[in-house]
Every structure is written in structure tokens, then in C-alpha cells.
């Protein structure tokens, strides 16, 4: 297998325009004859479904939730970046491109990131036209705020519910196409296999989660927008249903998986408070605009926060990074919080927390202004912790939030299986080793609204194949395999619940492949995960039957995939013998304990090719070439 990124020639700023011109167009009459399956209805999936249907394609859209509006993009809080330069503070497409590529610690493709920055402006226009209620200035203009890793104010927002509003915008457009009969919507369906015929993606096997029936759906191309794999860690800010199964089924069918060890751990989440805990809640990074992060200077200081005088507080981000202060990128902020807690300076009962204090901002701007910016976040915090952030500083700790790794795609967002396209968090493409705040929404919508509509046309125009039929033997084989696996899961009848295995896997990954990594720990984790996976297939207790609604069975399939994926993640972390962005290997750090990249040997994308159960996946490198930016040590001082 050869990894061909298909990056167009020419100067960086002209690549996308030139490429769009070179892409083949599909005759409007032929579009109505082409069927496209879209899996997932988050920002990427909903925007892709709507846009492809508007162009005339026949679209079939699948989601595991009861409604497409519930996809987890809905939970994104802070905002979406665009290079509009409305604030006249020196922003530009080039600056957004540079910040993003630097923020990703130079482990993403120049051409992809530049295109993302270019498209960012169209996204804002599109969403405004859809009626997304972005925050406004008194004069009626769009308001902006700044976000981690940037010194300009380029983030557009709708209170702390930006993801919700953008998703409802895309869901509205999708709904319009459903009403027009251009999209057929399948809710409560889980994609359990990708069907490949003559080397091309030609359909999916989906389980109807209500009836339990396995369904065969054929198409001319499959678009996967199924999100990230943060839930491998059990506790994360992801929704309970977020999973890797659709992406991993595609991996098993030949789609290479890129950079699985790149996992973003978000610095500002509500700390863990009990073993029964099912998920972690994010407090938007935007709070760091006005909030100051601190811990007591002395590990012995157990006084309540209001009794600790200013001089005995350690505002460690402001001290260490005077230029960016509390606005350093997420990976840096997270690691620094861990370092403080490892030194015994953590606060709260578990001592695994730091303060995020908005007192100064409330005094300066008044309670009303702060409430308008963060009111819903404060309420959410109070509901969970029973503490009032207007009165006492919030306690926060890092948590697994987003996954930069994902299925490998070329510049057209096509995976290593022709006809399988991957969008949004499910692909690996734009964020390198660390994603900057407010750029996930940007990428999901760029992929769905403005890239896939062009690139899929080129594939369909050039690809000659017969109309796919559900009675093809490949569908029967896939369906049979899925059915066999479901039967196996149900028949084990062991002694441990699915959640019990999931919790243990999460613990192994968090301890050994989390904020910091060491070769010794990673090797240990690899063995532990293999053992746990073996035990799972002998000792899991699922209960119920395959017929009808069975949430334990749904989870069992997902955890089975996470167990297999966990090994891949650890393998990838072991292979990358450097530190970059979120991947911090303690053996590779500067004198000031920052990530030490090895551009000589690791300036590449790692892509893993499945070679069958029991065989080590094959490792491939896609070298990253930087022609327009200079690779520097990332500094936020």
C-alpha cells in the first residue's frame, strides 16, 4: 500500500483553487443517479448530507441517536475560528494557518491547514445565513473573543453553546433536504461493517437498534463522519454513545488508521469525584480569557481559597508563559496542571485539581458582563459541584476531550479504501499533534460544507462501477460476520459487566498513555490491554438477546472495539520516539520540560494498516514536508 496524499502542486495559497478547477464535475443528470451513504449527523455529517443533497445526490444518512440533532457536536461550547479580521487586530488567513500548524506542533499537512484557514470565512457567512444566533456587538456586528493558542480575537460564538447552534443550523439544512425527499434518514442505526466490493467502499451493514435487525445498504460511496475515540479512556468529555466502531470496522476492511496516539487532554474540566462516575464535564476554554489559573505556593497550604493571600498563590501559567499567560494551548495548560498536582500542590479533596478563578474579571467587568459570557457554564458547574463560581473559584482538572488521530485521508478526504471518505473528528487530517481551541467546529464544517461536495464528485466522475446491489455476496458475508460476532458476545455469559471492562481499559490508558508517557509504561499497558481483551472475550456478561432494544449489547460491541483499538494507540505511542503536542514522552523533553520534537526522524504521519487478527498491523509513514513555515521549537513564553 502506498500513501499518496494527493497534495496539489503550486503555491500554497493557490493549491485549493487550482485543485477545485482540476476536479472532475459530475453531470447534474448523473448526480441524481449516484447514491451516497453518510454515517453520523454531527457537524461534519449533517453539513455533508445537506450539501450533497442540495447538489442533487441521493443521500442516505445514518445516526445512532433517536434524532440527528443529538450528535455530540452539540456539546461544543466555546466557539469557532475564522480569519475574518473583523477586529482589525492583524488576523489573516495566513495567521490562522500559521497558528494552527504551530499549535499542532508541526505534525499536520501545510496544504490541508491552509485550506482550512481559507474556508473558515465561508463557514461564518454560511452559518449567519442559516440564522445561527452568534453573539453581536451593540452595532449589530458579529462579536469575537480570543481563545487558547492565539493572540488575536477570531473566535465567533453563541454564548457557551456554539456547537449546539452550529449543529442546529446544519440539522435545519438537513431537515430541509429530508422534507424535499433528497435525504433518507435512518435514526437509531449503528454501522457495524463497511462493505467493500472490488476494492471499493460500496455500502454498510447497519444494526437497527430498536428491532435488532441487521440491514444492508448499498451506495456508490460512503462518507464516514462518526466522530472520535476519546471514550477509549472510559472517562472523557465525549457523550456516552460516542464510539470508534464504524471507523474501526473500516480499519479492519483496509482503511489505514493515522496517529492513533494523538489524544487531546483538555485542561479545564470538572475534576473526577467518584468511582461510579460515568463522564467528565468540560468547562469551556473560553473561561481562560477571563479566568486565572492558580494553586497555593506551598503543598502544605490547605486553607480555603479565599483565605490564601495573593502573595501565597502560584499563578503558574502567567509566571511561566508571560506572553500567552492563561491562554497557552491546551496540551501545555494540561501538562502544567498535572505537574502542579504531581508536586502536591493540587487542591480539593482528591488533590487532583487546580483553581480557575474569575474573581478579578467579575470585579473589573461586573457580574452581568461575566454572566452574559459564561452564565450557562457557571450554572452547569454549580449543578454538578454544588459550588457557586461567582463566589468561589472553580476547581478544574484535565480530561480526555478530542482525538486528533483518525482514519488516514488524502487531500480529498478519501481513505486508503477508494470510495470511503472520512470527515470531521473521524479523520486525522488538520490538527497535527494538538488541536487549538475553536478549530474542531471549523474543521467539521469545512469538511462537510465545502470540501466533500467537490472531492466526492471527482471520485464519482472518474470511478466506473456497476450499481451496487444489496444482494451481492459481499453484503451477505459482512452481514454474517456481524451476526456471528453479536451471537458470540451474547453467548459468553461471564461474570463481569461491559462497563467493568471499559472502566479497566480506561484506567490502563489514562495511567500509561495519557498526559505523559514513558516507554516502560507503554510496554506494560500493551500487555495489560491484550490480557484484558482476552478476558473480555471469555468473561463478559452482556445479557438479553440480539432481538430488540439492548443497550448492553450495543456497549459490548463498542467496548470490544475499544479494547482492540487501545493496543493500536499504545503501539503508535511506542513507535513515536519523540515528544510533540499532546504526545509527551518523558524521555524526550527540553531543559524547561517542554516537548522535544525530533524533526529528523519523526516529521511524519504514522499510518497503520490492518493485517488480520493476531498479526501486527503494518506501519507506514507519510513524510510531512514544510515549504512555507519554518519548523521551530514551539514557544509561548
Amino acid at each position, binding site marked *: 500500500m502506498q500513501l499518496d496524499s494527493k497534495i496539489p502542486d503550486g503555491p500554497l495559497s493557490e493549491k485549493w483553487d487550482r485543485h477545485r478547477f482540476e476536479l472532475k464535475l459530475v453531470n447534474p443528470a448523473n448526480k441524481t443517479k449516484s447514491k451516497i451513504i453518510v454515517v453520523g449527523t454531527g457537524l461534519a455529517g449533517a453539513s455533508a448530507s445537506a450539501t450533497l443533497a442540495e447538489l442533487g445526490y441521493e443521500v442516505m444518512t445514518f445516526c445512532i441517536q433517536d434524532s440527528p440533532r443529538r450528535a*455530540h457536536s*452539540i456539546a461544543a461550547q466555546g466557539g469557532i475560528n475564522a480569519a475574518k479580521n473583523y477586529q482589525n487586530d492583524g488576523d489573516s488567513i495566513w495567521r490562522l494557518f500559521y497558528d494552527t500548524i504551530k499549535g499542532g506542533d508541526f505534525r499536520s499537512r501545510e496544504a490541508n491547514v491552509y485550506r482550512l484557514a481559507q474556508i473558515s470565512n465561508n463557514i461564518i457567512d454560511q452559518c449567519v445565513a442559516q440564522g445561527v444566533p452568534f453573539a453581536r456587538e451593540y452595532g449589530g456586528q458579529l462579536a469575537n473573543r480570543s481563545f487558547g493558542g492565539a493572540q488575536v480575537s477570531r473566535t465567533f460564538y453563541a454564548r457557551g453553546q456554539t456547537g449546539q447552534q452550529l449543529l442546529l443550523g446544519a440539522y435545519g*439544512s438537513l*431537515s430541509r433536504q429530508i422534507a424535499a425527499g433528497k435525504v433518507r434518514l435512518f435514526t437509531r442505526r449503528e454501522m457495524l461493517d463497511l462493505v467493500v466490493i472490488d476494492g471499493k467502499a460500496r455500502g454498510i451493514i447497519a444494526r437497527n437498534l430498536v428491532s435488532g435487525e441487521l440491514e444492508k445498504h448499498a451506495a456508490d460511496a460512503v462518507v464516514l463522519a462518526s466522530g472520535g475515540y476519546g471514550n477509549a479512556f472510559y472517562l472523557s468529555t465525549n457523550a456516552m454513545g460516542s464510539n470508534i466502531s464504524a471507523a474501526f470496522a473500516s480499519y479492519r476492511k483496509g482503511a489505514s488508521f493515522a496517529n492513533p496516539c494523538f489524544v487531546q487532554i483538555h485542561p479545564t474540566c470538572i475534576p473526577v469525584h*467518584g468511582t*461510579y462516575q460515568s463522564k467528565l464535564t468540560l468547562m469551556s476554554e473560553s473561561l481562560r480569557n477571563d479566568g486565572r489559573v492558580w494553586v497555593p505556593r506551598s503543598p502544605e497550604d490547605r486553607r480555603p481559597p479565599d483565605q490564601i493571600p495573593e502573595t501565597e498563590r502560584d499563578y503558574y501559567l502567567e509566571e511561566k508563559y508571560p506572553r500567552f499567560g492563561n491562554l497557552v494551548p491546551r496540551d501545555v495548560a494540561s501538562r502544567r496542571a498535572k505537574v502542579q498536582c504531581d508536586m502536591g500542590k493540587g487542591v480539593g479533596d482528591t488533590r487532583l485539581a487546580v483553581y480557575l478563578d474569575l474573581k478579578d474579571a467579575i470585579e473589573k467587568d461586573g457580574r452581568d458582563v461575566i454572566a452574559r459570557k459564561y452564565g450557562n457554564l457557571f450554572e*452547569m458547574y454549580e449543578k454538578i459541584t454544588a459550588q457557586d463560581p461567582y463566589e468561589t473559584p472553580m476547581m478544574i482538572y484535565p480530561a480526555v476531550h478530542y482525538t486528533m488521530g483518525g482514519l488516514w485521508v488524502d487531500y480529498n478526504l478519501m481513505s486508503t479504501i477508494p470510495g470511503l471518505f472520512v470527515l470531521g473528528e473521524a479523520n486525522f487530517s488538520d490538527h497535527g499533534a494538538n488541536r487549538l481551541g475553536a478549530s474542531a467546529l471549523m474543521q467539521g464544517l469545512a469538511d462537510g460544507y465545502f470540501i466533500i461536495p467537490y472531492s466526492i464528485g471527482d471520485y464519482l466522475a472518474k470511478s466506473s462501477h456497476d450499481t451496487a446491489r444489496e444482494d451481492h455476496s459481499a453484503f451477505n458475508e459482512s452481514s454474517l460476520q456481524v451476526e456471528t460476532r453479536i451471537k458470540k458476545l451474547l453467548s459468553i455469559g461471564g461474570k463481569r459487566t461491559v462497563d467493568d471492562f471499559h472502566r479497566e481499559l480506561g484506567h490502563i490508558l489514562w495511567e500509561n498513555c495519557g498526559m505523559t508517557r514513558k516507554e516502560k509504561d507503554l510496554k506494560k499497558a500493551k500487555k495489560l490491554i491484550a490480557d484484558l481483551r482476552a478476558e473480555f472475550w471469555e468473561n463478559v456478561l452482556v445479557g438479553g438477546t440480539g432481538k430488540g*432494544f439492548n443497550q448492553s449489547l450495543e456497549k459490548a460491541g463498542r467496548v470490544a472495539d475499544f479494547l482492540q483499538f487501545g493496543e493500536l494507540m499504545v503501539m503508535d505511542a511506542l513507535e513515536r520516539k519523540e515528544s510533540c503536542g499532546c504526545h509527551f514522552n518523558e524521555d524526550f523533553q527540553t531543559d524547561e520540560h517542554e516537548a522535544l520534537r525530533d524533526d529528523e526522524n519523526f516529521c511524519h504521519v504514522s499510518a497503520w494498516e490492518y493485517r488480520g487478527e493476531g498479526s501486527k498491523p503494518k506501519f507506514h509513514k507519510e513524510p510531512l514536508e514544510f515549504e512555507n513555515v519554518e519548523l521551530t521549537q514551539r514557544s509561548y513564553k
Partner: protein
Amino acid sequence: MTKAGNKSCINLKLKVWRQKGPDVKGRFETYKARDVSTNMSFLEMLDVVNEEMILSGKDPIAFDHDCREGICGACGTMVNGRAHGPEKGTTLCQLHMRHFSNGDTVIIEPWRSRAFKVVKDLVLDRSVFDKIIQAGGYISVNTGGAPDGNAIPVPQESAEKAMDAAACIGCGACVAACPNASAMLFVGAKVSQFTLLPQGLPEAKKRALAMIGKMDELGFGNCTNETECEKECPKEISIENIARMNREFLKAGLS
């Protein structure tokens, strides 16, 4: 972990609606929830009960949930007759057990409405909400060709009010709380969002008529100003939005 008797741990009696499918009769079953930490969320309490049930070979309680941070709108049941439980402006996933006392009996049942069919136990089919949105809950604009975002100024006050309405999470609590099982708050919120924004005006009349028509067709009741919806809405959406929708409906009918 602390045990019951300790202040941070409680024991509860749960009466839970069990129903195998849409066409099967359901009934309440009683379960014990022991040593419930008061820091748990309501759904985490159900997780623990379910895990015990799986281990003892029983069918766990089916309930919808996803984000567990109050925004996806998937979760929601009646808790002692209140939609999403006793706390104001709170989804079920954000309701914490510290609001219950040791020895409490907690009655848990699905939203009751002709328009929402039970899938299993507490899980509902709320696809009727999607159908209402499909009838006109959007601005008809294709991707591409949108003017610059700042070419359409929106007064800050209008944007804020539109956002108040747009905060709806589509959970269905308003329908469950209403004695008429009306969806007027849900529909009013969407109609209002677009009426308050200049982008939404060209289709305002058509939208109000289409969405209200669809709501009636799907079997939701009418509004008789009970205001229960506003009280129980986890996003505290105001019934002012229903008034605004009624105005739009009237205007559309008059022209």
C-alpha cells in the same frame, strides 16, 4: 466509598415504568437503590442499579441518554411527577442525588403523550419533533453564496432573544409537563428564533403556518396557558415565545 448511614450516602426505593415495547402493556416495578452517593447524577444512580441487574440476570432499565451535560436533549423522564425531576432548569443528567433524602421513594416514568410512543421502558420515539422541524424549522439557504457575515447586522438585543429561544434542546419535557400534551413551546421557540432575526423574515409566514399545521397533524394538543412547559423546561425557555408564534400565525392568516 462511604456507606449508607453516612450523610453522603442514601438508600432509595425506585418505582420504575417497565414496558417491553410500543404495543405491550407496561407496569411499575419496584427496585432498591442502595448506598447511593449524593454526588452521583440521577443517571449514574440508574447505571449502578442496571449493573446490579445485569449481574443478577435481569433485564436492565432502558433509558435514553448521551451527552450527560444537559445539551443533547436525549435524556428525560418524569421523576415523582415532575419532568426531569424537582430542580428548576435542570435536565435529568444534571440532577444530582444530593436533592434526595435517605428513604425516599422515587417514581420514574416516561413522558406521557399520544405523540411520543414508548420504544422500551423509559425510551421514547420523539421523531415527531424532527417532523415538525422538517416542516419549516430552518432558513432555506443552500450551501455557498452567502454574503459576508457582517453584511447582515443584527441588533444585539434581537440576537440575545433569538439565542434564548434557540437554546431549546428538543427533549420533550414541555409536552410531558403540559396537561394538553401541547408542543407549543417547542414550536414557538423555533418560530421565534427565526422571527427575531432578519435572515428568517422572508419565510416567516410560511414557516409559522407549516410548523403549526404539522404539530396539529401529529396529535399534539393546544395551548391553554397553563405555563407548566415554561416551569419544567430545562433550558427555561419563556412562554413569551408562544405569544410571538401566535402573533406570527395570526399575521400569516390575515395576509
